[in-house]
């Protein structure tokens, strides 16, 4: 379990990193926290000829608010996101989700850009990006573009980021005032990838939901939004029947597969249960939007 030989270069700026990527093409992989890439290299599942170390690109991690969104640098460690007072205030759902990301040692090393690009369908951050309609900025030599979270994840471990691009930041548009939130995940062991998980936000006004979002992890090739369930609940009073119907819609809207740890049937069942729990929490935490 040793990686084959590779070249190692350090890029200190985005321009330098993208120039290197342009030079080496798909023989190169950027490395930051290395929490997914290094194990994959040790298993020889990937064998990049060149590793471009992007950790020195400044600023290393930034979390700041501007113009109706919170902007997070791609090199921000999971732990920084987890402990950020700004995130805890604006996006408590992110703080809650981060606690489910592996173990402290991994959160101290892993970066959010790395997690998004690794695109494990059971990972928390991709589901959060989809939930919050994140905009993900990527750079390549001589250019930059922004990808909506819904377009970012193309398959398991597969994203819209090109071989010559790196993720530079993620922008989370602020939620409406008073938005409630919920996050529930079920894993066999503390710190494992969830067998399934659900994140929700709910905004309400005069006892009715004005905006509902549900994102699911671990139930398919990519994190998904449960649009049908969202539509059922929007405008509802979140009564037991409405929530039960939404859970049915969650289950009907996904197509999980069997794997070693969970059958498709069980995952589908679990997604409904966790979505109900996340929705109940979100509804309970939501304040009236007018306030």
């Amino acid at each position, binding site marked *: 379990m040793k990686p084959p030989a590779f070249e190692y270069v350090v890029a200190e700026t985005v321009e330098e990193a993208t120039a290197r990527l342009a030079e080496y093409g798909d023989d190169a992989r950027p490395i930051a926290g290395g929490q997914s890439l290094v194990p994959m290299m040790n298993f020889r599942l990937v064998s990049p000829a060149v590793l471009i170390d992007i950790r020195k690109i400044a600023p290393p991690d930034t979390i700041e608010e501007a113009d109706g969104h919170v902007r997070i640098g791609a090199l921000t460690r999971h732990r920084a996101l987890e402990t950020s007072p700004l995130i805890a205030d604006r996006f408590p759902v992110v703080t809650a989700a981060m606690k489910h990301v592996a173990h402290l040692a991994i959160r101290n090393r892993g970066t959010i850009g790395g997690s998004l690009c690794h695109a494990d369908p059971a990972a928390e951050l991709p589901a959060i990006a989809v939930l919050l309609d994140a905009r993900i900025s990527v750079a390549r030599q001589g250019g930059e573009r922004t990808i909506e979270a819904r377009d970012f994840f193309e398959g398991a471990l597969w994203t819209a980021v090109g071989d010559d691009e790196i993720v530079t930041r993620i922008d989370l548009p602020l939620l409406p005032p008073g938005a409630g939130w919920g996050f529930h995940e079920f894993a066999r062991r503390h710190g*494992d990838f969830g067998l399934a998980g659900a994140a929700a936000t709910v905004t309400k006004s005069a006892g009715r939901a004005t905006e509902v979002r549900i994102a699911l992890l671990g139930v398919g090739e990519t994190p998904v939004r449960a649009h049908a369930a969202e539509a059922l609940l929007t405008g509802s009073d979140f009564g037991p029947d409405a929530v039960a119907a939404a859970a049915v819609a969650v*289950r*009907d809207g996904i197509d999980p597969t069997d794997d070693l*740890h969970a059958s498709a049937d069980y995952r589908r069942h679990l997604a409904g249960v*966790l979505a109900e729990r996340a929705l109940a929490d979100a509804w309970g935490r939501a304040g009236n939007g007018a306030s």
Partner: protein
Amino acid sequence: MSGIATAGAADVARPGIVGARVQRREDPRLLTGRGTYVDDRKVDGAVHIAFCRSDRAHARIGRIDAAGARQAPGVLGVFTAGDIDAVARPIRATSNMPDYRATELEPLARGKVRYVGEPVVAVVAENRYLAEDAAGLVSVDYDPLPEVTDPEAALEDRALLHESAGTNVIAAREFARGDVDGAMAGAAIVVEDRFRIRRKTPSAIENRSCLAEFEAGRQALTLHASTQVPGLLRDALAEIFDLPGRRLRVVAPDVGGGFGAKASLYPEEVVVCALAMRLGRPVKWTSDRMEDLTATSQAFDEIVRARLALEPDGRFVALDADVIGDVGAYSIYPWTASLEPVQVVSFLPGPYRLQNYRGRVRAVATSKAPMGPYRGVGRPISTFVMERLVDMAAKKLAMDPAELRARNLVRDDEFPYKSGSGIVWDRSGFQDCLRSALDRFGYAQRRTEQAAARNEGRLVGIGIASYAELTGIGSRISAAPGMPINTGTERATIEIDSTGGVTAAFGIASHGQGLETTLAQIVAEELGVRVEDVEIIHGDSAAVAHSTGTYASRSTVLAGGAATLSARALRKQAIEAASYLLEAAEADIEMRGGVISVAGTDSSITLRELARAFYTEMRRIPKEARESLELSASATYDPFFGTTTGATHVAEVEVDPQTFGVTVRNYVVAEDCGRIVNPMIVDGQVHGGVAQGIGAALYEEVVHDESGQILTGSFVDYVVPSAAEIPDMAVIHLETESPSTLGGYRGMGEGGTIGAPAAIANAVADALSGLDARVNELPITPDRLFRLIRDAEQRKGESRYEA
């Protein structure tokens, strides 16, 4: 949270070194990264092996193309079966057990491969990176052979894994006592089921590792190996390489866990030795985790059909069981493929009064890693099956499961008791363990709380498991029945050197149990010195003339016994030598805390002074005495039969009725391991054993697909519980005097793993008792529980599940 409920009479009378919570002397080293494991051993000129392992479960080996690998940078050679055969005899685990068929294990596969992960080609290079690069260039042609993966299908012998055996059933045995059929026919009630426990791998934190160094000048071979059995390996390798034992040394330095998986001889160990001799360079191989999960011995893979018959008052009258053990591709040396499944039928009657018993076992070879010993060996399965049957019977009789056990556990006045399978329980607090565990658990109160929780729709369950095991087994019955090794004795040599230092040498090999501490306590107490004065040598075949090592809950009993005998002999000689210096009669001299004194006087000398007088200051002790005495003693201890260790575990679990997650809420162990050397270490052993048992019950499973591919090649997929999944537990120690062992010690290293799967399974079944759900398969994963509950509810026509 742990507690000591009772202290043995010996403890109260004499709060000595034995029985004290002495801190583990190995911990400062091991916990601060100063341990020295095999892989830490850096030797000039060492080269490294990467193995090309079979990616087929069952196939004939065709052409092996290693031309590219031989040319690769840093490669010293590429070797196949023929290269090793030229210098090494095949490994053959023999036994005189009837219906046992030995299978030869070639260090590198010859002719065909029989499991995914079997070593086929050894690539040797200057470092492991280059070796792996070159291994990637080797291509092996395989001609597929029919699958032999399902143990029940393999019984039919449509395809054979070992043609020479003529059958896939490589061991079979039957125990029968009394009139099972008659008792079954006449019984008031019978409970039965088909039980399945899925394959485990012991997963020690340190992967296997070995380093062979051959000194051409002395024609001497030294193997450093991460093993529990250095002496056993030395003896085996001496045969395999036809080398005299005095020029063959096997050293187990610090070893990071074994759990039985490091108690066997492995092909890789033979290969490093063969190639070190051939290449004239030290040769190292350190397993990576994937190799460990695929090619280290696996365990606990059985299908058991069992029936228990009872009288209306709950008395057990008959037990009948048929066991199929999936023993994997080869019969492991020295234990053979029979070890694990035969123990299932040997121990199935448990600590209960039961005279009509029939247990039949067949060990079936399949295309999987060989089955070997794993903490508990067979007894986690026998206990799971028997204890489930007891709870099923209690439910059928509408009797409290604790009461049903109390009615059937062997009582104190019935020892020694010969069990249904012929095992003799010498004496153990079976009833005491049950009572103490229930008391500490607060059984009656918790049953009340459980009823209240159930009324709220919560699935709370309580499970009990009682078991008994034989530990410290001596030469009369053997831990390895029919096998040509002696597991019944251990030897110790204790010496006082010229500085007064005490060194005690053993053949056992501590690999995490704290034996450096416990043996030092025994030596210190028996000799009359301070614990810190005693150095313990272990894990080295050169330390004593014969030893097999540490396994089968034997080291405290056997090595502790040898320590006791040799310490007593040494003490006698030291006192005799001191008698010349103190000018007193031996009978008046005592030795305590390293000081030798004349009773009732202030006349004394230290051990250091004695040693100086004995070895250096030649005029102080007469020549004749110095020549006839020795400040050294050796002894061998043989417990002959061995002794009984019993315990009761009580678990409380809660099942989430929606996610099917199982949380272990409370856990109590009451165990009787006789006289305790170090309660803190016993606590730790119980905690760790229970954790592994919880793993067996809820998490761990080696999975193969139909074609024999292993799907659990990493710790992402082979799920071992972490600290977060393990509850606090209360441990109660009973110290029933063992009449059978020197010092009254009993083995206890495995017990936690034996009781926990059954206790958890019973607790989960109890949580689901409102449903007709058959909890008969381990591990109880959330997905299995989902299907179990869905199926049960669908039978009742009240499904809540969309799928």
